[in-house]
Every structure is written in C-alpha cells, then in structure tokens.
C-alpha cells in the first residue's frame, strides 16, 4: 500500500512536470526520463514485493488479475520514453503525461483490488 501511494505521488509529479512542458511547448528532456526510470524502479520493487506476498501469504486475490495489472503498468513508461527520443516536439510531453496518468490510474485500480501492495 505505501508503495502504491508512492507510485501515484511520483506519477503525479512526473505528469505535472510533463504538463508544464506541454504548456511551454517543449519536448521531453533526459532528466524527465530519469524521473520515469525512478517510477519504473519502484514498479519493479512493487512487482517483487507482490510476488513475494503472493507466494508467502496466499492472499485472497486472483493472481491472473494482479499480474495483468503489474505487467501492463510496467510496459507503459518505457514506451513513452522510447517515443521521447523519436518525437522531439511538445507531443512527446503529451505522451509522457498520458503515460504517467495511465500508470497512476492502474496503481489506483491495484489499490482497489489488493490493498496490500
């Protein structure tokens, strides 16, 4: 649960940063990608914790459902980062914003399904 809240908070910061760049008509910069990498790192830690909890506690949650979310949210930011290199306009910032919001939303759903992570 604290990890999920941390991810949501980080995504909010990253999304806000990207939104600011959209307004300023700027493309994504490398520093934002480091920010995205930090979020991704927390997601990996969360996946490991989730896996460990799933093995040790046998929680009352459907594994397919849980891993569907965990796997889905892991691919989003890397794709947005790859596009940041390909698209050197403000639209890469919009994509990063969309990506950050999506990950935050998936985290929120994850919290709803399974408060333990």
């Amino acid at each position, binding site marked *: 649960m604290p990890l999920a809240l941390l991810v949501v908070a980080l995504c909010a910061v990253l999304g806000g940063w990207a939104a600011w760049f959209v307004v300023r008509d700027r493309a994504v910069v490398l520093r934002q990608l480091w920010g995205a990498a930090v979020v991704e790192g927390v997601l990996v830690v969360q996946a490991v914790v989730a896996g460990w909890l799933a093995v040790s506690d046998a929680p009352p949650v459907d594994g397919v459902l849980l891993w569907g979310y965990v*796997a889905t949210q892991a*691919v989003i930011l890397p794709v947005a980062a790859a596009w940041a290199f390909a698209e050197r306009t403000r639209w890469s910032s919009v994509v990063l914003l969309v990506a950050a919001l999506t990950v935050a939303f998936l985290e929120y759903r994850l919290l709803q399904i399974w408060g333990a992570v």
Partner: protein
Amino acid sequence: MTQDDGGAVRPTVTRGTRPTGAGAGRVLVAVYGVLALAATVRAGYQIVRHFDEAPVAYTLSLVAGLVYVLATVALARDWRRVAWVAVTVELVGVLTVGTLSLADAAAFPDATVWSGYGQGYGYVPLVLPFVGLWWLWRTGRPSPAAADDLG
C-alpha cells in the same frame, strides 16, 4: 489539439500525405495503445476466469481489444487503409453495442469496453474513433498528386 505545432519539426511529406504516427498523431497512437492494452488484457482475464458467465460479452470484449490493437499498429505504421477500417469498425461497434447494452441489458450481463458507449472507460472509446477519423482525414488531405492511398 487543433493547433499543429509551434516551431516544431515539420513532418516529412511522402506521397502527399503526412504520417499518421508522428507529431500529435503519436498522442493518438499512445491513447489507442493504452485502450488496446486495457481492453485486450481485461478480455483475456475475463475469458480465462469467467467465460461461462457471459460468453458473448467477453468474446466481444476480445474482438474490440484486437481491433484497438490493429488500429494502434495501423496508425503507428501509417497503414492508412487498415486504420480507416479499424477506426470505422470501432465507431460502429461503440455505437451499436452502446445502444444495445442500454436497450437490452440482459444480453450484456457484464460490461464490455463498448457497453454504455464506453462509460467504464470515461467515454474514451466513444470519443476516440471520431478523433481517429478526423486525424486520418486531416493527415491524408493535402496535395492533389497523392490520390493513391497505398496503405
């Protein structure tokens, strides 16, 4: 989103059309990609776990998800003709299923992406096809020399 860009790199003009997957189109592809992922993963889960409960709804969910995948790839790779078809299918799908799900709720015991005009997904499935068609029309418009849409 109607403004093009400010001092940004102009998309290269090939065959008189502009690529569907560059510039603002990339945002469209991103949103399509998220929806494709959400719909397909969810349908996969529903089919694996609860297929017997609502086979029609879940099969439809999977078809819808795959159409979104197709639309995403087509827009990203600039396959215009495929994109036109996929986006049109989505528009027809969301309107048809949306109407049916409200008119005959018993036929759709569980939600699909298109139920209630995409209500469960913030109506994004309803808005997206219109944006997609507009974008395809817009990027494909200029230059009389480019009558051949080679997909």
